[in-house]
């Protein structure tokens, strides 16, 4: 073989269309950026602190775990950063530092790494962390309590808490335009409806999330809320407030669409999304929790493997009947 060229040998295909995990995660962060920036503008320095600590500690936890498990560092692919960012966007601006650290620990370590890392997690890490924190320290997610010190120049009230406590009459002063522009109380990056919708559309157009899930989630919320409202409009608010407050939009575009914990087939995606949307409104309207998005998505995450078993028959598959 003297004088022969040394060639690179590998298996087909010899082309790749260039997509990567890192591009997917950084584009998702880019899409979440408008809503996060709006939160920073409204809440100022505290929000920046919470968001930075979230992203920083999420990446730190993953790096620490990488070292402990003697694995090559995987923080470069942006999944820990994205998890931290989405978590930070839901926490209140006044969240104490220890809560942020616990939240990212639950999300990254208990939500992702112990299942074998990205792709092995049965739940959306952000959703799991929010569920654990929400059950452990419910007051921390009472945005009316947490954010009372802020003077933002508009009516600072958390629509879903008002709705739960005082009925639909208490939320009539929220106009759709206010809700879309973030003139409501809530998580740092969860209030700016227009920004979240724009980010979601960007992700759908680029193909980074599966539109079927977002679409059916929103339709599930819309239809269920409308049915409740139509049955008794004095007890249940209309669909607009359900769609544009709480975690509905960030849930539809950023949380329910988490890759590992959601289905990939067409019909299962519709069932999964619609199921989460319907459960959200059921929990809000007749459950004890103020917002139902977290538990609704968590429940559908559990059901995901079962739902995704509904699949088309493969080419040439022979079905043998007993």
């Amino acid at each position, binding site marked *: 073989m003297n004088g022969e060229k040394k060639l690179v040998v590998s*298996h087909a295909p*010899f082309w790749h269309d260039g997509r*990567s995990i890192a591009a997917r995660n950084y584009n998702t962060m880019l899409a979440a950026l408008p809503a996060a920036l709006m939160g920073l503008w409204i809440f100022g320095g505290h929000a920046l602190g919470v968001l930075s600590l979230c992203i920083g500690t999420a990446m730190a936890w993953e790096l620490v775990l990488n070292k402990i498990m003697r694995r090559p560092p995987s923080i470069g692919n942006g999944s820990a950063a994205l998890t931290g960012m989405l978590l930070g966007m839901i926490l209140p601006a006044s969240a104490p530092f220890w809560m942020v650290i616990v939240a990212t620990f639950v999300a990254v370590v208990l939500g992702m790494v112990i299942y074998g890392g990205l792709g092995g997690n049965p739940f959306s890490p952000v959703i799991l962390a929010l569920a654990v924190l929400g059950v452990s320290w419910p007051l921390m997610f009472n945005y009316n309590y947490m954010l009372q010190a802020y003077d933002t120049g508009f009516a600072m009230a958390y629509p879903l808490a008002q709705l739960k406590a005082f009925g639909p009459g208490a939320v009539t002063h929220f106009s759709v335009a206010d809700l879309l522009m973030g003139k409501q109380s809530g998580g740092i990056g969860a209030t700016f409806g227009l920004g979240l919708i724009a980010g979601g559309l960007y992700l759908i157009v680029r193909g980074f999330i599966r539109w079927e899930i977002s679409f059916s989630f929103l339709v599930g919320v819309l239809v269920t809320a409308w049915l409740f409202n139509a049955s008794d409009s004095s007890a249940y608010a209309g669909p607009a407030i359900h769609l544009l407050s709480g975690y509905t939009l960030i849930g539809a575009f950023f949380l329910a669409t988490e890759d590992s914990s959601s289905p990939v087939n067409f019909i299962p995606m519709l069932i999964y999304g619609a199921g989460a949307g319907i459960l959200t409104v059921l929990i809000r309207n007749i459950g004890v929790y103020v917002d139902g998005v977290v538990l609704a998505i968590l429940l559908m995450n559990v059901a995901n493997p079962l739902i995704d078993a509904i699949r088309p028959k493969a080419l040439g598959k022979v079905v043998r009947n007993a």
Partner: protein
Amino acid sequence: MIRRAFIGQGRPKLPYSPVADKGAGSVLQVPQPAKATFFVDQPYKDRAELVIKEGGEVKRGEPIAPFADFKSYALSSVSGVISSIEPYTGARGQKMTAITVEAKGDAWGQGPGSTPTLEAGLKYLENCAGGLSLVRAANSKINTLLVMGVERDLLATAVGQVVSEKAPSIKKGVEALKKMTGAQKAFIVVPPGLAKSAEGCGCEVKVLNAPYPAGIDRLVLHSLFSVTVPAGGFPEDVGFLVVPAESAAVVGEAFATGRVPDEKMVTLIGKDASAKPLNFRVRIGTPVADVLKIGNVTVNNSDRVVLGGPMRGKAVYSLKMPVEPDTDAILVQGADDLPEIADNSCINCGECVRACPARIQVNMLARFLENAQYEEAAARYDLLSCVECGLCSFVCTAKIPIFQYITLGKHELARLGAEA
């Protein structure tokens, strides 16, 4: 390389290279090689079993069968002397025998005669240019011939070139194959640009106007004939004999002239993506280096040379490797143009599931294959339904070599089956 578009919904759109009737392009001739190498699909275990020897003489178009049972053979493309007989392991672990012939003179050997019979076909035409195989057809009832006038892979135009210039030979070949197999009907599948040429082929013409991988035989049968080949089965099982267009032309010429043509149309795709790939007429068994020399393509260290196209070809480790009967293209990639492969775990983005033309749950299949659960993969996640188009690896966000896992899975499954 075709990159993903900015707008990312839907399946990847990979059009076949357009080909047109008449003058699809000029064809260059590669001269007879000094040495030609052929692979026989039978393992070389012991020297004592060989019935041919180094120093033995062979002639053009003659079958060389190294073992007494004549189970498989190679068709020589040169007249000369056997210089070596060695064991060879194929890209997918196939145990084979490699025979090298040193060229001397230009004498033609004995051909199949002029009466088309299945026996003559099995003895003289198995694995002729294009890669025809009649073995399974001999054991099945064939009622339809399916002549494939569409390319096997992207960028190649060799099949189109053959259809546009050899329609009369294809017609003769189809008639011969009908007599040999007892098939009553014959169809030819061509891309839209070749519809006119195909009319001269003596078959009913079916035009396939769809992007890759629609031209793969099983997908053609499914989409144009509503016939589904069972998973793990072959087109012969449902009465179809798939005949590469080039093989049909070879069969036609073989019975008309009594000599089995030993040249192959090959598309050479160089590193410069903007340059138009050229077609070459090459003796089967010619080292890749000879073709690259005529095509003026230089290869450096860390480049990649592929027999076949970018999606389904196989990379070679040496430029001495020969052009094989089913090599429609030679692709050369520069060192800076090689996509990265990674050992990430699947992130379940579902791109492969949407891309798969066989509707396989590739995300689940990959998990089983990564963990060497081959039987489970076949039983529950349709490993054997795979038509081997390579789109799953092409679109994989995590850059997992899924297609390689699938090939490995099929290979291991076959090995387990053989041991049982």
